[in-house]
Each structure stands twice: as structure tokens, then as C-alpha cells.
């Protein structure tokens, strides 16, 4: 079983981001910490768990991003991925899900993967479509928001339970190769073990330039980011904590919410 886990690097907290008026994109401050997207940690962990159950499986981890994203590829190796790939993008800026998916698809074509796993969404852009777009570009079946997997190696199939509205779960059976987008809570992502950290030190991730992947023209662009309109904000209670509490109790009374 050959598995590709896609891991995006995101900033740890959006508090440390500013909008750069010139580039129309975020500019990280010196204190900005970057790490692996949490949903992708679940995807990578699921890949590692499948490898444990299926002998002779390999897990490759792929990240697309500027220079800094190499630390996320390294993190994936430390968690236990067999091989790391970094598609190196120049500078900070908007990359549409379609472009990211095209890059993943283009790379995946060279590797004949049985399974491609992504997180259900990234914590920064929250588009939640990179996996599905990758599946569509490669013309593969796909299940989104997967909360359980059950691999059937003998028939080259996988059963995946998808979380849908109101806590319902839809169970699908797919033929491999396939793409799954992994929902949080499916497993407990591991911390790197010392032995894997040591092993990762000797591993050299493969770096690929986007121009070598023959990517299609972008289909959308970002014309700018901004802080949301605050006009729709509710009433801010002002004063000390005690004053705010008193005001709130008064409001709850007025609205007959206290009996």
C-alpha cells in the first residue's frame, strides 16, 4: 500500500498576523509560529496507522509552501513518514485550492499511490476542497470528512465513514486508488518518538519546483483580505468585570431569561 499524506503548514495563531496592504496578503510578524495544520496531523496519523496494519506499506508526506514549510515536512518525517516531499513556492501569498490540488495531482501521478489523504480543511483558508479537487483532477473516487477507515487490501477497497449533518454518518465503499479527506477526532496524532526524530535527521526531503510540475493556469485570485465589517457586531459591555457581570444580569432580567 502506497500512501500520500498531504500536510500544509499554517500559522499557530492568527493573533500574530497582519495584513500587508502592499501585497494584499498576510505578513507574519517575527513572533509568528508555524506548524502543521491540525486536520493534516489526523490525516498523516491515519496513514501511519494503515501502514502499521498493512505490511510493506509506505507513507510519503507532501507539503506545498515557501521555504518555511520544510519544517512541516521534517515534522512529518519525525512522526514516522518514510519519505518527505516539499513543493517549494516562492514567497508568501495566496495559493488557490485548485493550484494546490493541481500540484498534488501532478506529483501523485509520478508515484502511483493507492491512497491520498488530506485533512478535511486547513485552519487558515478553511476552503476544505483541496482533497476533492485533487480527486476530481485525477478522476479518483473520494470521500470527505472521514471519521473511520477500514482497508480491504485483498479486494483493493476501502470503507470510509463520512460525517454529515447533525452527527449522522454515511458509510462508503470505494475502490482504490482513492482520496479521503480526514476529519479531526478520527485518531490521536502521535508525538514524534526519539528514534523517529533521530531517523528523520538523516533523511533528506525531496524538493520540487512548481514549474517542474507543469501546472495549469490559476482559476482564481485573491483581490485582498481585510478585517470583517464590525457593523454586525453585538453590543460590547464596558467597564470592570464586576460591572459587565451586573449589566449582563440586568439584561438577562429584562429579557426574562432569569426566573
Amino acid at each position, binding site marked *: 500500500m502506497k500512501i500520500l499524506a498531504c500536510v500544509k503548514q499554517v500559522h499557530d495563531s*492568527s493573533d500574530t498576523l497582519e*495584513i500587508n496592504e502592499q501585497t494584499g496578503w498576510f505578513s507574519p510578524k517575527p513572533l509568528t509560529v508555524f506548524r502543521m495544520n491540525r486536520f493534516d496531523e489526523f490525516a498523516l496519523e491515519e496513514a501511519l496507522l494503515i501502514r502499521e496494519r498493512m505490511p510493506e506499506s509506505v507513507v510519503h508526506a507532501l507539503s506545498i509552501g515557501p521555504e518555511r514549510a520544510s519544517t512541516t515536512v521534517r515534522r512529518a518525517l519525525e512522526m514516522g513518514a518514510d519519505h518527505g516531499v516539499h513543493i517549494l513556492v516562492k514567497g508568501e501569498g*495566496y495559493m488557490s*485550492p485548485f493550484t494546490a490540488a493541481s500540484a498534488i495531482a501532478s506529483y501523485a501521478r509520478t508515484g502511483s499511490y493507492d491512497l491520498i489523504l488530506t485533512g478535511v480543511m486547513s485552519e*487558515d*483558508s*478553511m*476552503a476544505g*476542497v483541496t482533497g*476533492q*479537487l485533487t480527486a*476530481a*483532477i485525477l478522476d*479518483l*473516487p*473520494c470521500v*470527505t*470528512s472521514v471519521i473511520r477507515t477500514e482497508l480491504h487490501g485483498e479486494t483493493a477497497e476501502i470503507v470510509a*465513514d463520512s*460525517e454529515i*449533518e*447533525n*452527527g*449522522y454518518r*454515511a*458509510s462508503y*465503499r470505494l*475502490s482504490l486508488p*482513492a482520496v479521503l479527506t480526514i476529519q*479531526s477526532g478520527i485518531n490521536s496524532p502521535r508525538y514524534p518518538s526519539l528514534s523517529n526524530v533521530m531517523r528523520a535527521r538523516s533523511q533528506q526531503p525531496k524538493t520540487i519546483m512548481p514549474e517542474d510540475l507543469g501546472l495549469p493556469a490559476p*482559476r*482564481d485570485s*485573491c*483581490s*485582498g*483580505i*481585510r*478585517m*470583517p*465589517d*464590525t457593523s*454586525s*457586531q*453585538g*453590543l*460590547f*459591555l464596558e467597564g470592570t*468585570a*464586576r460591572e*459587565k*457581570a*451586573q449589566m*449582563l*444580569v440586568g*439584561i*438577562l*432580567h429584562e429579557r426574562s*431569561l*432569569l*426566573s
Partner: protein
Amino acid sequence: MYSAHIVIAEVRRGVITQESYEAVSFARDCSGGLLPAVVLLGKDVSLQAEDLAEKTGCTVHVIQGDHLGSFNAEESCAAIADLISGLLPALVCLPHSSMGWDLAPRLAVKLHASCITAVETVKGKGFTRSMCAGRFMADIVPLTESVVITLSAGAYPPYSPGGSAKGPIERVRAAGATARSRLLGVREPAHRDSALRDAEVIVSAGRGIGKKENVEIVRELASLFPRSAVGASRSVCDLGWLEYGRQIGTTGQTVAPKLYIACGISGAIQHVAGMRGAHTIVAINTDPDAAIFRVAHYCIVEDITTFIPVLMDELKRD
């Protein structure tokens, strides 16, 4: 010339979803008031098609097929693309539901269109969507003639003017099944807390409460209200601080209590979708820019560990 505006409607448990009518509103807005055509798929959705045509006045294209009885992105995509590629759609709008965000990207690739998800509004040529749990808004501009979008639930009012002439219904049959994935079944949630559904007051914990021990403070606050329950955001359940049966949001429960107190909840659309129907919403968060303050009626910028004890004190004194 790509000019058609199309809405893909969704049926859940036998009825057209509210979000489908919201998508009609949005598509109509994007085309300067012209009604979009609506596409409805299913095994037998005649009644629902009548309902749609009557309420909206839109032309309803019904795609029928025995294999379309349950949702499958591959099958749905093939059937819809066959029908609408001939209509040269400038805009295809789906609800941002599990169906929508599964189907939209596949449809976009098939139509050589751009794909923009969880759209909240339209601004010039751009579609506005939130990022970073609602902290920022981004305007995404399609560079293609055709764009497929999913619309966030609740972003537009549902379109059902009433009194307008019933729209025509056109029926086609979809070609046979070819998908490489098949639905085995749909299960009800194993752990569902009926306490949440029946509660008049819900006090909810988000990641911003800081640590598992602080769930106790949230519980204590809830205990001061009769008919109350404790809810949670997804990340709190993922961290194991509260069980999944407490989760409120798109993949959890949808609630509409009289009073909803959000503690340390950022306000990502996935959570908001499950609680925006609450009558009175109070949010407590240390971050003055948190998206939850755009949903809340009353906003309190405080740390829950210091504020809730003071609030409880005032409630007891009352």
C-alpha cells in the same frame, strides 16, 4: 456567452433544505434580480420539485435516476454536468452542506470552472469568504468564465416570495451508474445528548477556555440556570475535554435555545451554523476581534476563568 445562473438544490429527509432557498436568493442577487434555474436530483423527487417551483417561481430541472436515491458525488456530478454544461452557466451555486462541499469541487473541475467555497457575500467581481475562523475576510475573484460556489448557511435569507407564478418543471433521466464508490448506509449518531435539544439555556465551551479543568467553570455556570445544558465546539470534543454528544455545529447538533452563552468560542462558521438560531446570544472571549462577536447580541471581552466566577456571584446575589 456564459450567463446562466444555476442553483443545485438539496433534499434532506424528504424536504428541500432551507439552505437551497438561500442559494436561490444569492444567485438571484448575483444576476441583478433574474431568477436562477434550479436543478434537483433524486430517485423520486416530484413532490419536492412542485414545492420548489411553486415557492420560488424558478424553472426546476429534475434529474431522475434510480441510482440517485442517495447522494454520491461522482454520480451527481456526471448527471448535473450532462445537463448544465449546455446551459453555459456563469454561476453554479450550491449550499455549503456536506453534499455541497463534496460535489462543488468535482463539478468545477468537470466544467473547467473555478471553485470558491463557504461564500458569505458578493463584492464586485469577488466572492467574499471568511478565513482563520472568521478573523479575516478574503475576496476571491474567479478568472474563469464559469464559477462554482458553495454558500454559507444563513448568509442570505431564503427566497420564497409566495404569490408568484409557479415555475415550469422539466424532467430528464440520468444515464446509469458508473461510480467507483457506493453508499453502504447512513447511521444515526450513537451518542446524542437530548439534554441539548431540550435545554432553554446552553452554556458552551470552546478551545479558548484554555484547559480541560476549566470545563468545570462552564458546568457551574450552566447549573445556575434551570433547564440548562453544557455544549461544546468541535475542537473541545477533539481534545477530549467534553464528549462528542455535546458538540454543536455543522457536524454536531443544531440548537435554538432561549439563551446561548459562548465561552472561549472563536465563532468559525462550522460552529455558528449550529447555534445562530438561539434567541439571545452572549459571547465571552479574550479576543476582541473574535468572529463570535459578530453573531452575539452581547459581547464581553474577558477571560472566562476570571469573569465567570464574578458573573456567578452576581447571579446568586440576584
